[in-house]
């Protein structure tokens, strides 16, 4: 009886991790652009997520800016962060990972500046008209889920259009085969910069929503964001990779990956995992999922090679 009650309780508490997972899944779409399309592991996101949150909270609470306008500025700020990483990487020859780490580190100070030297700035749902919040009363959480879904639909729609344009094609080619891209006249440096810029812009949007959801912007809110983003991307790929081939479905599977990740997290927390151990747990999950293809290849029995396609 007690067990069933626990399950019922857990199911009732699901809307919160679902909403949170959707926001992180949105962030993971940004990670997907760099990690999957550009073939670059971009660590800028740990910083740009907090930048998005900081810009949004400060603009709304201290300057009275309309929250949607503040989201737009947060997006622009994230874009700028990605642009910086792109310049470090392409124009200054710094390896992509290191370039991301440098920007991320610099952003820590910048984010503190944005928040006027405070590590945490709160935003209250009672004082401000928030887009999303974790407040569970008055069906607010369902509204939050609905609005997150709307954001995701818009972002996925815009990205689908963009990556189908001449410019989008050239960015995909850059990530897929750099030499081929260059020998087809594509300035691969500029394409990497554009990809990193868009990616971090989306991450900052997620940061803005996340700050509203959790009621504050925190200078540390992005710590480990890249790992969560990768988790969402990989979980989505492992579960839906064979099923989903269309670009839109691929992006949606990333979001679903984020939601599943947060459901699992809330489950293990319920089962007694300490919050402080959460990052260790996340790192392990991602490490395992990243290692699966490696071990699969190693342990695969010697099968005859797949037949070549008939010409």
């Amino acid at each position, binding site marked *: 009886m007690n067990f069933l009650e626990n399950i019922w309780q857990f199911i009732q508490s699901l809307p919160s991790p679902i909403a949170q997972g959707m926001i992180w899944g949105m962030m993971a779409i940004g990670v997907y652009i760099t990690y999957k399309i550009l073939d670059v592991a971009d660590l800028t996101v740990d910083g740009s997520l907090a930048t998005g949150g900081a810009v949004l909270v400060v603009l709304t609470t201290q300057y009275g800016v309309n929250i949607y306008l503040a989201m737009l500025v947060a997006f622009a700020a994230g874009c700028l962060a990605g642009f910086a990483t792109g310049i470090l990487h392409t124009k200054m020859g710094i390896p992509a990972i290191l370039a991301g780490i440098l920007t991320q580190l610099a952003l820590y100070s910048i984010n503190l500046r944005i928040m006027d030297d405070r590590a945490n700035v709160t935003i209250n749902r009672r004082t401000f008209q928030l887009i999303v919040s974790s407040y569970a009363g008055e069906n607010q959480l369902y509204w939050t889920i609905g609005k997150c879904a709307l954001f995701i639909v818009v972002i996925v729609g815009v990205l689908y259009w963009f990556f189908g344009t*001449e410019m989008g094609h050239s960015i995909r080619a850059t990530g897929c085969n750099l030499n081929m891209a260059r*020998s087809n006249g594509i300035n691969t440096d500029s394409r990497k910069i554009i990809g990193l810029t868009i990616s971090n812009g989306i991450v900052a949007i997620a940061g803005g929503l996340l700050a509203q959801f959790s009621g504050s912007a925190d200078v540390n809110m992005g710590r480990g964001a890249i790992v969560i983003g990768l988790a969402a991307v990989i979980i989505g790929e492992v579960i839906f990779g064979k099923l989903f081939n269309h670009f839109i479905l691929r992006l949606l599977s990333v979001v679903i990956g984020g939601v599943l990740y947060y459901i699992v997290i809330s489950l293990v927390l319920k089962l007694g995992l300490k919050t402080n151990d959460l990052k260790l747990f996340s790192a392990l999950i991602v490490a395992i999922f990243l290692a699966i293809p490696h071990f699969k290849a190693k342990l695969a029995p010697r099968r005859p090679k797949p037949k070549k396609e008939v010409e």
Partner: protein
Amino acid sequence: MLKIENVHKTFNPGTINEKKALQGINLTLESGDFVTVIGGNGAGKSTLLNMITGVYPVDCGTIEIDGINLTKMPDYKRAKFFGRVFQDPMMGTAADMQIEENLALALRRGKPRTLLPGITRKERAMFRELLAALDLGLENRLTSKVGLLSGGQRQAITLLMATLQNPKLLMLDEHTAALDPQTAAKVLELTDQIVNRDKITTIMITHNMKDAIAHGNRLIMMDSGRIVYDVSGEEKQRLTVPELIQKFSESGGGMLSDRTLLQS
């Protein structure tokens, strides 16, 4: 149309790995020339193409095409003049992208990439026609990922991409060497077809002496970063494989690879 003057290139200068890849190359191509290039491993054949396309900068010398000085131009800007097919079928195409997307990318070489659709209906119809002409059954697979295709199919598509918008110069870097003999023959036949149809100035590197003689109107032999033999016209037509091997040993290098000999 192509004018290469006194081009030198040394890799890792001043170290024990120093490699003088090109030692004063002078080469002028006329419009419509089809030049075959032979030479042992490390003779500088591929390096020459890399210099022309700008993969690496030259140490000294100049490269011009139709009077335009390319020497300092970055590779992606030069790309509009060239089409190139590599030995490795993986290199010339984007595996994760569809056949039509690859072709559309090549069609836009040298043009600004805008926010207009990456591929139009009209282009799609054109691609279908071009693919049908290849006779590889690809015309109904426009949206297949290129990565699913065989090496020969990929090479044929790369060739199509390289010639899609009439390059000033087509460069083929042993583009049939990684294919089985039958497929290689087919791709080579296709090459002749396209080059003759569009009168494209072409440089073709090959390990196969028979191919080097049978194709094109001019033959160049390279050794140790130099052009050691240059023959064209009737003299080239009369050339035989034994004569060519003779020239090879005379050139001083004599570094004939087993592969070259076996295929001769």
